Structure formats: structure tokens, C-alpha cells
């Protein structure tokens, strides 16, 4: 698949915009999902995921063919999500979730930020609770937890995507796992 994508990228570099459509179609779910997991709401996820593809297109000449395209694309998307998290107004998150069309109803979770009684935890609620706890992690831990356990990248690949040393990735994944363990131990 990576080969097919590389061929498409060559065409895009030559100025063939339509070839980029196949690239977007191929990665759209992965990148949208990554943004959603990072940001926690569908509107921002769509906004940022689109922006990531536009940036990739505009800067396609700075992509080095010898490296994996997906790594480069995830890096753009990740940087954009982290930027967005930093710029967020404190009240934006709550507002966006109330209007959110995904039905996860995180607002009620925020009101009672205490562990849920075990017998009331149904599958969907548990999932949304876990998702919420992940999204509460500081971005630098959240990114790595998401890339490792939800998007199945190796630690080496994560170090390439984030452009940080492997040792730093390991330290952060340890801390991220410990933080989540503490939050989820009573569930």
C-alpha cells in the first residue's frame, strides 16, 4: 500500500492535484480518528484533520520520499492537534461537547468526575469514560498512548512521528500508563 501511495505522491509533486484525492481517501479515517482521539470532539477533529491534509498538500515538496509517508502525515496532524489544544479557550471544551453529535455525553462525566459504580458501567459508557480519561491526559502523554495503543505504532515509529528520542517516548509511555492506571483502577 505504501508503494501505491508513493506513486501517488510522485504525481502530486509533479502538480497532479487529482492524485492527492486518492491519498486523502486512503488516510482520511486514520487521520480523522487520530484527531478525534487527540481533541475529543468531532467538530474540531474534522477541522484539524482537513487542515492536516491541506498542509500536507501545500508542503508536499518538503516530504522526503525515502521516509514513510504515513509518519510524515501523522506528524503534521499531531502538531496541529497539539497547537489547537494549546489555543483552546477554557470553556470551549464543555460547549463543544454539549453540542457534540457523537452521543458520548461527556458532559455528565465531567460533572461527576468520580469513578462509576461497577454495576452501572455498561460497555458504551465504559468506553466513553476511558476515552474521556485519555483525553484528560496532558497532550505529550496522550499523543503517545493514542499512537501506541489505539493506532498500533511501534515506539520507534512514534519517535519518528514526534521527532523525539526513543528514550523520551519510553519515559512518557511509562508515565502515561501509570496515570491511566490510577484513574481506571477503581472502575
Amino acid at each position: 500500500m505504501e508503494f501505491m501511495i508513493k506513486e501517488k505522491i510522485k504525481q502530486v509533486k509533479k502538480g497532479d492535484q487529482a492524485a492527492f484525492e486518492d491519498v486523502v481517501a486512503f488516510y482520511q479515517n486514520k487521520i480523522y480518528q487520530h484527531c478525534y482521539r487527540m481533541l475529543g470532539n468531532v467538530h474540531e477533529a474534522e477541522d484539524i484533520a482537513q487542515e492536516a491534509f491541506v498542509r500536507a498538500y501545500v508542503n508536499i515538496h518538503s516530504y522526503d520520499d525515502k521516509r514513510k509517508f504515513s509518519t510524515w502525515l501523522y506528524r503534521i496532524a499531531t502538531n496541529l492537534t497539539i497547537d489547537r489544544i494549546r489555543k483552546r479557550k477554557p470553556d470551549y471544551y464543555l460547549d463543544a461537547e454539549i453540542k457534540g453529535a457523537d452521543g458520548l455525553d461527556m458532559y455528565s462525566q465531567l460533572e461527576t468526575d468520580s469513578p462509576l459504580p461497577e454495576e452501572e458501567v455498561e460497555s458504551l459508557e465504559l468506553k466513553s469514560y476511558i476515552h474521556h480519561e485519555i483525553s484528560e491526559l496532558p497532550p505529550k502523554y496522550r499523543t503517545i498512548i493514542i499512537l501506541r495503543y489505539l493506532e498500533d505504532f511501534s515506539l520507534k515509529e512514534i519517535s519518528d512521528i514526534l521527532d523525539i528520542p526513543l528514550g523520551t517516548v519510553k519515559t512518557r509511555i511509562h508515565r502515561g500508563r501509570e496515570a491511566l492506571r490510577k484513574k481506571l483502577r477503581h472502575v
Partner: protein
Amino acid sequence: MNCKKEAVELMHKYLDGDLTKAEEAGLIQHLETCEDCQKHFHELKRTITWIQSTGQITAPSNFTQNVMAKLPKEKKRVSYMRWFKAHPVLTAAAIFFIFMFSGVFSAYNHDSQLIVSKQDDLIIKGDTVVVPEGVTVAGDLVVKNGDLRIDGTVDGNVTLINGKLLDNSIEGEGLMASVGEVNGKIEQVDQVFEWMWYHLRNIFESIFSVDNK
């Protein structure tokens, strides 16, 4: 073994697949005797299972179209080129008519003699045109029915029709190794069709003047 410092550290190394055999043995031994660490280890593994259980979502249905609509406009020339490639029959018909009227067919068949677009300072040895070392050709260079060797510099595009670019390193200039330079595109046209394509493109470029300059 210290629980907080060593055992927990080993658990994380285990989860990252970094544990040596000796460390693994040490951890197992500790877990057999320490209930707190057993619990800690269990919680970590359960946490990972839970993280992985959160669902998959897909992009909104019109996502790709929305991205494409946001891209800056591409140069028009590429769209024409793609149209030609996507409609080979119409393009072939168009080529046929254009060449019928412009008499290119006969031109191709009849001229097989070496033609160079510029003569100044170039050396011609039989079928080979040489841009000598130290010589700079200003502007585009077209060589038809002959090979080209560039030891000097071409400040423009190079087009070779029915000929090839000779590798100047074969000549073995030794340590002098001043490799020729082309400050533009190099295009090689070998076959009749490509040759027509080259002409057609020039014609279209002049008709539509589509290069955004």
C-alpha cells in the same frame, strides 16, 4: 527487590518488550511473593486492554471532497495534460488532425540529418554535439538526430530528439571531473509518438498560453 523503583520499572519494560531473560526471571520471582506488585501489574495490563477497547470511528462521508475543495488551485497546464491522458482516443484524433494540417508527419519522415538549435561554441563530432568545458549556452538547446555531451553549462532546457545524452564521466577526465551542468529540464524524445506529443504540447502551450507566468 524494591517495589516502587525496580519492580514497577521492570513491568513497564515488559510492556514495551524490552525485558531481558534475567530481568524477566527477577520480575516473576518478585510477583510470586508480592501481592501489591501483582495487583499493580494486573491493573496496568487491564488499563491497556481497556484503552484498546475504545471504538473505531470513521471520517464524515464528504471528508475527501471537502479537503479537495480547500486545496489551492493547481496550474491549468496539468489539468489539460491529465485530460489528454484520460481521453486517449480523442487526443489521438486531435493529434492526427493537427498533424495532418501542420504537415508534421512528412517533416518527421524526411529529416534525419543532425540539427542543433544553436551552433555558437558547440563542437560537432559526427553525430555527437559537445558543449565544451567552460562554455555556457544561454537559453534552450535542441538537438535532433544526434547525441549530446555536456561538459560545460546549459542555461536552459535541453531537448533531445532521436538521440541520447552521453555520460561525460566515461571520458575519464580524471581529477578534473568538471561535470556538465543543465540549469533546466532535460527531455529526451525517442519515438514518433513522443515526438508528436512534444510538438503538440508546444502547439497547445502557444494556443492556450496556459502557463501561469
